[in-house]
C-alpha cells in the first residue's frame, strides 16, 4: 500500500496567495493522475471549495472531530495526496496540533510523506515565522514559496537576511510563483473553475465555455511555469515514487 502524502499550504498573513498556490497544486496532481483531496480551513467561506467543490471539504483544523476526519482517513482514503489549505496565521498552531496528535512522529517514521508549502509575505515578520515553523517542522519537506502572482510583490527583506533564515531549515527548497496578468486572474475568479478547466475552456460542470482565448493563453503559459517549479523540486516523486504520465495542460 503506497504511502499517503499530506501537503500543508500555509502563510502567516492573509492575501499572500496561499489558496492560489493550493489550486495549482491540486491541478498539478490532477495532471499527473494522482488522486487528490483537499481540506479548506477557511470556514465558513471556503475559497478553495469554490474552485474544487468535488475534491474539497471545509473543516475546522482545531476541532478534534475534524482532525480525525483528516488524519484517521489517510490510509483508507482513495486520495493519495491530501492538500490542506491552512488559514492565514494558523500555520504554526496547526503544526503544533499535528505534533500533539503524533502526526509529525508518523512522518518521521516514514509512514506518511509530509510537506509544507510556506507562502511568504513581503514583511520581515514573515521571515521570522520561518524560524518558528522550522522548530516544529523538523524533517518535513519544506518549501518556501515566493508568490508574485497578484502583483510584483516587493519583498522588504534583502537576500542576505532571507538566506540566513532559509538556511535554518535543512533541505528547504525555494519555489517562485510568477506573476499572472490581472485580467486573466480575475476571469478565472469569476468563472470559479480550476485553472486547467479555464485553459481547456470548460465550465464548472465540464461543459463548453466561452472564455477569452488570449486570457486562456496567459493562464496556460503561467500554469506551465508554475508546474515547471514543481517539476524542479520533484514533487511527483515525493508523493509517489512510481512513474507518472502527465496530461498536457492545453487540451
Amino acid at each position, binding site marked *: 500500500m503506497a504511502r499517503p502524502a499530506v501537503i500543508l499550504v500555509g502563510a502567516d498573513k492573509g492575501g499572500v496567495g496561499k489558496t492560489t498556490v493550493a489550486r495549482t497544486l491540486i491541478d498539478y496532481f490532477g495532471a499527473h493522475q494522482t488522486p487528490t483531496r483537499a481540506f479548506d480551513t477557511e470556514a465558513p467561506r471556503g475559497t478553495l471549495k469554490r474552485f474544487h467543490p468535488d475534491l474539497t471539504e471545509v473543516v475546522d483544523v482545531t476541532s478534534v472531530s475534524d482532525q480525525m476526519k483528516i488524519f484517521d482517513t489517510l490510509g483508507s482514503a482513495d486520495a493519495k495526496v491530501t492538500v490542506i489549505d491552512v488559514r492565514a496565521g494558523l500555520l504554526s498552531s496547526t503544526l503544533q496540533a499535528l505534533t500533539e496528535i503524533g502526526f509529525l512522529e508518523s512522518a518521521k517514521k516514514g509512514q506518511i510523506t509530509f510537506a509544507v508549502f510556506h507562502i511568504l509575505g513581503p514583511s520581515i515578520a514573515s521571515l521570522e515565522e520561518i524560524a518558528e515553523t522550522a522548530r516544529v517542522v523538523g524533517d518535513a519537506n519544506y518549501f518556501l514559496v515566493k508568490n508574485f502572482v497578484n502583483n510584483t510583490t516587493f519583498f522588504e527583506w534583502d537576500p542576505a537576511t532571507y538566506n540566513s533564515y532559509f538556511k535554518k531549515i535543512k533541505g528547504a527548497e525555494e519555489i517562485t510563483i510568477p506573476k499572472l*496578468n490581472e*485580467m*486573466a486572474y480575475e476571469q478565472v475568479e469569476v468563472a470559479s473553475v480550476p485553472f486547467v478547466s479555464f485553459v481547456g475552456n470548460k465550465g464548472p460542470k465540464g461543459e463548453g465555455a466561452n472564455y*477569452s*482565448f*488570449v*486570457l*486562456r*493563453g*496567459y493562464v*496556460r*503559459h503561467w500554469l506551465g511555469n508554475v508546474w515547471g517549479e514543481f517539476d524542479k523540486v520533484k514533487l511527483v516523486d515525493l508523493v509517489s515514487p512510481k512513474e507518472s504520465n502527465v496530461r498536457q495542460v*492545453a487540451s
Partner: protein
Amino acid sequence: MSFRSSITIVASPRPRVGKTLVARLLTDFHLSEKRKVVAFDLNAGERTLSQFLPQQTVAASVRDVNGQMALFDRLVTGDDTTKVIDLGHESYESFFTLAHQIDFTEEARQRSIAVAILFMVTPDQTSVTAYRNLREKFARAMLVPLHNEMLGSSQHRDKYPISGGGALAVKLPTLAPGLRKLIEDPPFSFADSNMGNATDILLDAHIELQRWLRRIYLEFRELDLRLLLADLTSSIRFGS
C-alpha cells in the same frame, strides 16, 4: 485538411518596406473574390490602411490586454471571414511574442483557420534573423517571403528559404513611379473598377495598372489555394 478561412499577417521588423500596400492589395484581392474580409491596422502612427479601405479596416493594438483580447479573440472566431493584418514594425515583437505564448496558430488550426505570414524580404540581418525565428516558432503557419521589387530586384532569395508544406515566395512587381504616386493617394481602391480617380488616369496608365494588378492577383490566388487546401502530408508533419 482544408480550412474554412485564413488569416494573413503582413510583417516586417523594418519600417517603410511596403507592408501597407501589400495589405491593401490583399484585402482588395479578397474583395474581388467576393469574400467577407476584415483588415486589422496595427500601425501606431497614421492609420493609412483605414484611409484607403475605411469599410474593411479595424484599428488594433497589442499594447495592453484589452487590445490583445479585442484582436486575438476575434482572429480565432470562426466567422468565415478572411482576415488581413498590417503589422506595423513597432508592434512586430510584441505581436509575435504574444502569439507564440498563447499558441495562436494551434488554436486557429483547431478552428479550421489557416494562418499565413507574408514576410517582407529585405537584405538586413535583423530581418533575416527575424525570418528564421518565425520559421522555428511558427511551424504551423505558412511562412511566405514576399519580394517587393519596388525596393530593388530580389537578390536575397537564399537568405529566405521556403519551408515545406506548400509554401511559396510571392513577388510584388515594380510599378512605374508615376503610377505608384497615383495609387498612394487616398482614397484608392484596387477593387473599384473605376479605380477612384480613373477619369484622371490616361488609358495607357489604366491598362498598365490593371496589368500589374492582374499579375499580383495571380500570385495571391496561388497562395490562397495552397493555404486553404494545405495537403494532408504537411498537416501530418506539423500536427505531430
